[in-house]
Each structure stands twice: as structure tokens, then as C-alpha cells.
């Protein structure tokens, strides 16, 4: 742009320019005309009412939230904001969980010591682990309170019955996330909690080797049943740790995330948050 050689300004002129706002205008012009800026943002932004609406309507993140909502939906006494808080807690477990994955190895020999290492030797590791843990605990509580509120306000009734069912799946996946995450510290508490928990799978109808009607299913034995599929063997050992890790970090979050998208979308499609009766 500028073919003339820039003069080196004295401090006094700079201060003078700063005072009357000339410097700001010059820098702004320089930045807006730079190739970096013009190639990143193809055109300017006109601050018109139409553009403001478009900004909201076409924003993928704000899409989760409707463009306009009923006044009653803003009343904290009606919703307790429990669904939103649950989603916020889910997001914080995702962020802290990904950070924990930088250090944690789901291997029998390492898992427990990685947990200790994170807690005592990694800066902010203790904070990340505890944020993950407490957000997870809180999420279980808020998701139940959310369900309780939806029940009390009758919001499960048509046309919202489909979203209620999605919500029941989501509460189940929340509990499964907690359960699978419980094994990962790989200490005695984790071991025995999951031993007791997965022992229930022995009693699965048809597919558990101690469950009802298992005698009618070919090949069901302690070695080949619902429980051994879950823990990759007949005892809670390293294969169980690896399986629970994959379920905890990949499978369940993906499924729950997909269901959450449907859940939020259906709130809008079913006419927004239910009104007072």
C-alpha cells in the first residue's frame, strides 16, 4: 500500500497522536488493509438489524438456544436451570477429562501410579482430577433434579414424550459414565466396586450365566456371557480396565453427545420449554 518510506516518529508526536486518537485510526487502517486480514475476512461487517438477526440465526452454537423464548421459560423457579447446569457440568468433565488423558494410561501396571502422578507431581493435576470428579458427581445429582423438575411440571406429556424418552437414555448414560469412570483410578475401592457392579451382569436374563433362561441360550458360560463381554474375562483385571476406559472416554460420550443434540433440538421443535399449567 504505502510506497513512501515511514518516518521514525518522535515520542512527542506519538503521544500527541495517541491523545487525539489518530494513532488508533492509523493502526486500525493498517490492520484492516493487511493481506492477513483481508484474506481471512472477505468483506466488512455492516451492523444492521438484519445482520444482527442473521448472526444469531446462523450461529451453530447459538442454535442450541432458540432465537426467541417464552418469558416464563426464563423463570428460574420453573426450570431450576437444571438441564443447562447438567450440560455445563458435562462440558467441564469433557475438558478436564481430555486434560487427564494426557497423563493417564489405562494399563494395569501404570493406571494407579499415573493417577497418583497426576495428583501429586503434575502442576494443576490435582485440580483437574478433582474438577473432573466433582463435576461428575454433581452431574449425577443435577440430572436427577432435572428429571424431577420435568416430572413435577408435567413436561413429559405430549408433545414432549419423545424427548422424555431421550432424557431417560441420557440419565442412563450419565450413570454408566460414572460407573465406568469409577474403575479408572485402579485402586481397591475401584476394583471391588466394579467387581460387585459387574457381578450383577451374571444375572442378566438369557445372556448372563447365572441369569434366568440362560439354559435356553447356546454357549452361555462364565467364559462367554454378558459379564465377560463387559470385563473381557472372568475377573476384573487389566482387560476390564482397558474396556472401561474405551467405554468411558469414547463410546459413551459419543452416544450421549449425539443424544444431547437430539434432546436440545427437540425442546425447540416441541414448542420450547413447557409453560405453567
Amino acid at each position: 500500500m504505502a510506497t513512501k518510506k515511514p518516518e521514525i516518529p518522535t515520542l512527542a508526536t506519538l503521544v500527541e497522536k495517541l491523545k487525539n486518537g489518530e494513532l488508533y485510526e492509523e493502526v486500525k487502517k493498517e490492520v484492516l488493509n493487511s493481506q492477513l486480514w483481508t484474506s481471512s475476512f472477505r468483506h466488512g461487517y455492516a451492523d444492521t438489524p438484519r445482520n444482527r438477526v442473521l448472526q444469531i440465526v446462523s450461529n451453530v452454537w447459538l442454535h442450541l438456544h432458540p432465537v426467541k423464548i417464552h418469558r416464563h421459560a426464563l423463570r428460574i423457579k420453573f426450570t431450576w436451570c437444571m438441564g443447562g447446569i447438567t450440560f455445563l457440568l458435562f462440558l467441564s468433565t469433557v475438558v478436564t477429562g481430555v486434560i487427564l488423558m494426557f497423563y493417564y494410561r489405562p494399563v494395569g501396571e501404570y493406571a494407579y501410579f499415573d493417577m497418583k502422578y497426576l495428583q501429586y507431581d503434575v502442576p494443576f493435576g490435582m485440580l483437574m482430577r478433582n474438577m473432573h470428579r466433582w463435576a461428575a458427581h454433581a452431574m449425577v445429582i443435577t440430572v436427577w433434579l432435572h428429571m424431577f423438575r420435568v416430572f413435577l411440571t408435567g413436561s413429559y406429556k405430549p408433545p414432549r414424550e419423545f424427548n422424555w424418552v431421550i432424557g431417560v437414555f441420557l440419565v442412563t448414560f450419565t450413570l454408566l459414565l460414572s460407573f465406568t469412570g469409577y474403575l479408572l483410578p485402579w485402586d481397591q475401592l475401584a476394583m471391588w466396586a466394579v467387581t460387585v457392579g459387574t457381578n450383577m451382569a451374571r444375572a442378566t436374563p438369557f445372556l448372563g450365566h447365572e441369569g434366568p433362561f440362560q439354559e435356553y441360550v447356546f454357549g452361555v458360560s462364565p467364559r462367554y456371557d454378558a459379564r465377560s463381554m463387559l470385563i473381557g474375562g472372568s475377573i476384573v483385571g487389566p482387560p476390564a480396565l482397558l474396556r472401561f476406559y474405551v467405554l468411558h472416554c469414547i463410546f459413551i460420550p459419543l452416544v450421549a453427545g449425539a443424544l444431547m443434540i437430539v434432546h436440545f433440538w427437540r425442546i425447540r421443535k416441541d414448542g420450547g420449554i413447557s409453560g405453567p399449567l
Partner: protein
Amino acid sequence: MAETITNENKKSVASTSKKSPKKDESKDTIWSRRDFFSIAGWAGFMATLGLSSLFFTRLLFPRVLFEPSPIFKAGKPSDYTVGEVSTKFIKSQRVWIVRDLEGIYVVFGLCTHLGCTPRWLNTEKKYKCPCHGSGFTKDGTNFEGPAPRPLEHLKITLDPDGIIEIDKSKKFLYEKGEWGKPGSKLLI
């Protein structure tokens, strides 16, 4: 709502107007070429999906497990005296080996109440659970405390060398009438 209806209407109108001349051409076939490829494509897709699910289910059960075998050898039948409960394997294998006049059977040391390991009290001739006080007779029948059913018996066989072989993965439950079944007792 209104939009979708009009769209569908358009589609149906378009498809009928397009299809009707074609149908006249191929009256003698059950499926049109398009139908055939559509059905074949979906069938192939579903078959692939179904088979992959089967493969994946099988994949979750490896052929080799790196864990202690449920089968172990427990010496010769003559090692056990009639009328006695052997506590030789309770520490390492969690089983008692009992011999009566008829033969030898194996009692699993897992309390049927909440899963603690009971103790064999030789003076009182009973298994007693330290956790909640369940008591079992020599053959495992529950007679006191909260245990809801008798202790489980395990599979016992004799290998070709005359050595006792115990399989802890095969259980015999009294309440299912399995205590007399083959494998539940080594008759001598």
C-alpha cells in the same frame, strides 16, 4: 409443516408422472431395474451390518485369557479321609473338599448371602460366615443366619492318571436339583 407437505406432494406428483410410462414398458417383471438395485443395495448393506455386528460381538471374547485357570488338580482320592472336611485348598482355591461314605465333593467357599468366605469350624461341624453369621452344615446346607440358599458345589472329576480335577467354572446348585448330577460328586 406447510412446506414439507407441498414438497411431498411435488415429489409424489413428479414420481407418478415419471413412473407411469416406465411401468407400461416393464409390466412382465416383478421389480423394475431401479427396485432391484435398491433392494439389492439395502440387503447388502444390512447383511454387512449384521455380519459385522456378529464379528464384533465375537471379537469381544478373546481365545486366550491371561488369568488363573478355573481348573486345578487336587491330589489322589486316597488323600481324603471319610467324614472329614479338607481345608487344604481354602486359602489358594477357596474350596473345601469333603469325603463321605459315598464319595468326594467340592464345596465353594463363597457365602450365598453377600459373598464373604466362611470358615470351617471342625468342633461344631459347620461352616460359619464371619460377616453376618450364616451357618452351613458339612454338605453346605444353610441352617442359620441370613444366607438364602446352600453353598454351591463345584465340578469334580478324575483324570486318566487317577488325580482329582476340579473345575470351578461349573457350579452345581442345590435349589436347582443339581447336587446329584454327574460331575457334582466323585463316587468311590
